[in-house]
């Protein structure tokens, strides 16, 4: 009965560890699950490892068990489940041995077929196990009284009695607000950016390594041996370029401001520039883009190890990116396209990433889909969610 439920949850893309299936069986066996509510709670605690998926679990649970008769799995179902998950379980034999309480030596001697047979027997075991008292499920009429919720034909879920409560609880959808990643908040941003700092030993060897000194001294039998290290320094240089013009960026002002705040407090060597829609021959160091222009071509003099982070929604009219006179700002005219300048930046700074405040799901359907796809050919693009920022940071620290 719950085997298909398990599959359905996995099919929905919920990352359920394959061994969770065995653990759930074990919980049932230990007599810890005596009602539908117990099953609802136990299955969630064992299978679902992030509150993000709690709501999906609730909906699936209500949908699946509403008015359904709870039956134990048939031998065929069990065998199929074992066969389909065996390979996954065997990826981590230690865990499998641990859950089953197997003897590792005996385990090694099994062939695949023997192992399947063994598992099947364990899962429908009728007799008492070594620790006494408890049974694997599938015991039908001989189950201890506590298992009454699972007797074949014993209880109709969704009718009167315990089962209906679980459905009701599941239908309350208490976890709805946790289901979506939502806009990233300041503490998450700080957490993600922290990882971009990378300290490298440079400078003179003048930092006393106390642990190593003590260790070496003791190894020397007490003759003091003083160990020095090179000083650690954050050498990371970061350039942050933000699109702060145009109504299309308006909804993201808050998130960009937070990003800027945290970038500022996290990186010692941070330079921030602003542009409108696309980078052309000039960017500005002042947010209103009036007083402190900087020629884009001058970036070629910067340290190529500098990490370049561009923040923008990448949504513009195709000519703004492609045409030589694409800049829509009045009085600005140049002879190269935004596309060319972006390529120039990508060549200058091999460690670069484009952060898009629009979430990934929209990139292909938004009005700016065409320009976004063009920019993605030049820069790896990440969305400004926690996961996106995390991947961007991983990409930026990578040695190339």
């Amino acid at each position, binding site marked *: 009965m719950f085997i298909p439920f398990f599959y359905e949850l996995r099919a929905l893309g919920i990352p359920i560890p394959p061994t969770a299936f065995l*653990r759930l069986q074990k919980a049932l066996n230990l007599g810890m699950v005596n009602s539908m509510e117990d099953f609802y709670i136990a299955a969630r*605690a064992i299978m679902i490892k992030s509150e993000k998926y709690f709501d999906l679990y609730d909906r699936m649970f209500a949908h699946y068990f509403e008015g359904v008769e709870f039956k134990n799995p048939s031998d065929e179902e069990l065998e199929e489940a074992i066969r389909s998950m065996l390979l996954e379980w065997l990826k981590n034999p230690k865990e499998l041995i641990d859950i089953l309480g197997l003897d590792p030596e005996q385990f090694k001697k099994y062939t695949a077929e023997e192992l399947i047979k063994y598992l099947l027997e364990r899962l429908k075991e009728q007799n008492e196990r070594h620790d006494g008292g408890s049974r694997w499920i599938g015991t039908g009429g001989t189950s201890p009284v506590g298992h009454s919720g699972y007797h074949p034909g014993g209880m109709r879920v969704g009718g009167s009695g315990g089962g209906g409560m679980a459905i009701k609880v599941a239908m309350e959808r208490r976890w709805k607000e946790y289901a979506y990643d939502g806009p990233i908040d300041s503490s998450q941003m700080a957490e993600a950016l922290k990882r971009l700092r990378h300290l490298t030993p440079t400078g003179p060897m003048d930092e006393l390594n106390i642990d190593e000194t003590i260790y070496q001294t003791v190894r020397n039998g007490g003759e003091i041996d003083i160990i020095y290290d090179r000083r650690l320094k954050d050498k990371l240089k970061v350039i942050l370029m933000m699109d702060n013009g145009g109504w299309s960026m308006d909804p993201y002002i808050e998130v960009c401001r937070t990003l800027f705040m945290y970038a500022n407090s996290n990186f010692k060597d941070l330079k921030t520039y602003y542009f409108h829609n696309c980078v052309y021959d000039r960017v500005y160091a002042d947010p209103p883009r009036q007083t402190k222009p900087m020629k884009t071509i001058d970036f070629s003099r910067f340290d190529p190890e500098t990490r370049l982070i561009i923040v923008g929604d990448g949504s513009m009219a195709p000519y703004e990116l492609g045409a030589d006179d694409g800049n829509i700002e009045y009085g600005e005219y140049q002879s190269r396209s935004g596309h060319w300048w972006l390529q120039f930046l990508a060549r200058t700074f091999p460690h670069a990433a484009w952060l898009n405040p629009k979430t990934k799901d929209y990139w292909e359907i938004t009005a700016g889909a065409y320009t976004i796809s063009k920019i993605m050919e030049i820069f790896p693009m990440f969305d400004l969610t926690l996961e996106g920022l995390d991947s961007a940071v991983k990409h930026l620290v990578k040695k190339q």
Partner: protein
Amino acid sequence: MMKDVKNLKEFEGTESYVLDPELRKIVNITIALEMPLLLKGEPGTGKTLLAHAIAQDLGLSLIVLNVKSNMKAVESLYQYDTLTRLNDARFGDSKRNVKNIEEYIRMGKIGQAFVSDAKVVLLIDEIDKADTDFQDDLLDVLDQMSFDIMEIDKTIKAKHRPIVIITSNAKKDLSDPFLGRCNFHHIAFPNQEMMHSIVAAHFPEIEKNVANAVINTFYSLRKVPNVEKKPSTRELINWIRALNNDPKFKASQLGKDGNVPYLGVLFKKSADLEQAKAYINH
């Protein structure tokens, strides 16, 4: 090992810890399965308190490992006290045998939990603070319930499998292998009804109208935008304590005309406090 789980009574909560029945079930299943329980949820939802309540209710001692950002897994297992050994080697005025390294091995928190003669509750608090290496190393130790002391080539095996509670504040998920080995629960921030029971557990004498006024104001203050750390249950309890000690405090006046005394108890970061003040006077 199975035996000592059997001998434990079920966890039922304690007087001062208001326990959600769902969480109680999860704790009991976790204890029966002998798996660690990973608890997530925003700060102040009682994740740490739960471990205290389990220990108290089951009559076990509690060992707390407070994870720090630069912590290495080995520190939580044992430490080789080289400094004392050096001192003994140089000045030789202790009873310890300098040649015997074992006399200079001190157990860390996890080590203590393993060598304890009775079953204990082991709380690994705020595991998200350390890096993923720490988490992975710890995972192996908790899986095997044993670790090696390299310096003296000795294996420490848990005499009794501790009940392991792990907490994390991070919204980011831990690594998949780690999650696979733990049972998981997310403690949601209590709703107003639940908060009334929590407040009543801390302040049995509180008057109904005071509790109402304070809790309503508290929940509206949690809606202040752009705050880095929202006030949690802990701050609410401290705030009520502060208000109780103020003879001038009148519940009926709370929240009227921007009258929210001791706002700093609720918002501890100065930037957050400014935001809250602006919100109230708005």
